[in-house]
């Protein structure tokens, strides 16, 4: 993400002038990551589409809202997507995180065994994992979506989430532990 900020600036300048090719280039560059981020955060394709549309409508209507001195365009777009997703998820009451206290108490019993993944079919495994990611608290779900699923660097994720890279790493470690706990727990339930 944001491999070529200078090119992004030029495309944005052309976009402001009404150059549709520039808009298409920016859209092709960022729509995938933004759509997937919104999808992983909400678990809902309709929400992901709505968020993607809103992000790019904002870019069309108010491209001056982005200030280059505050970071790359990609981070700005992800920031907008993050806020929109949070708003939509809150509105639709889809946010059902695992209780952290429960995870703390049950952590040691499940983390060492993920054989369940090899025992399941690929489809079942993905569905299980998707549910587990969606069940994470928002701040952990964000780092998993950005760093694990979108392969964003810790530094970029930190800039986007307005925290330090160390915090991102810490949250990611904890999020993975929660995922393992969740998956092991589901194995026991089977």
């Amino acid at each position, binding site marked *: 993400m944001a491999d070529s900020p200078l090119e992004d600036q030029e495309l944005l300048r052309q976009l402001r002038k*009404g150059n*549709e090719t520039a*808009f*298409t280039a920016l*859209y*092709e560059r960022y*729509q*995938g*990551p*933004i*759509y*997937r981020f919104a*999808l*992983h955060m909400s678990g809902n394709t309709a929400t*992901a*589409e709505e968020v*993607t*549309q809103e992000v*790019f*409508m904002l870019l*069309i*209507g108010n491209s001056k809202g982005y200030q280059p001195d505050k970071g790359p365009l990609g981070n700005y777009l992800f920031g907008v997507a993050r806020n929109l997703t949070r708003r939509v998820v809150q509105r639709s009451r889809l946010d059902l995180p695992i209780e952290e206290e429960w995870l703390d108490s049950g952590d040691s019993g499940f*983390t*060492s*065994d*993920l054989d369940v*993944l*090899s025992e399941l079919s*690929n489809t079942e*495994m*993905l569905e299980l*994992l*998707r549910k587990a*990611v969606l069940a994470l608290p928002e701040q952990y779900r964000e780092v*998993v979506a950005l760093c*694990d*699923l*979108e*392969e964003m660097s810790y530094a970029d994720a930190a800039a986007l989430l307005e925290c330090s890279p160390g915090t991102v790493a810490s949250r990611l470690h904890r999020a*993975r532990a929660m*995922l*393992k706990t969740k*998956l092991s727990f589901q194995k026991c339930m089977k």
Partner: protein
Amino acid sequence: MHEIDPQAGDLKSDARLSEALRGLAASSGRGAPAELGAGLATAFRRHHARRRLVRRVTIGTIAAVLAVVIGVMSLGSRSAHQGPGKEIVKEQPVIVPAKAPERSTVAKVVTTPPQSAKKQAKRKTANSNLAAASRREFLALPGYDPAIPAEELSIVRVRVPASALWQMGAPVSPDSGARKFMADFVVSQDGTPYAVRLVQ
């Protein structure tokens, strides 16, 4: 007995989790549906078409306002330059043909009163009346001869009865009876009236 190394188990499960997450990322699809992109491109075109229209209208409005302002300013400065000249033109008697009047009704000439401060004030008022009256049009009398040079004509202000003015074709009511009106006559050097206009 085979002992399980907890750290090795952790690494193993981490690797499995990473692999599973990669699988999840790969299964999430490439991005938003194509219809969304097409819709956004349409929205982009509409937005910029509207923006261009608004810009054109704004520029046109500003240009029109500027043109009006410049026009008004240039007219104002021109009228300031030409103001006295216009007055001179207005002072010239305008001869307009009138309907059959009778020539025998020229009344007495108003004589100039003796000089005094009071009368000078009255004179000023009369002069202003004359200036106002000079802006009205003269009605030509039957004896009017266009061949007579303007230098030989002069304007005489007299008070004449309404009936006489009506007979000359002036715009007064015949019912005014003996009431007298102040009028300006254009007369030649021999005293022949050629045109008349009402002052009051």
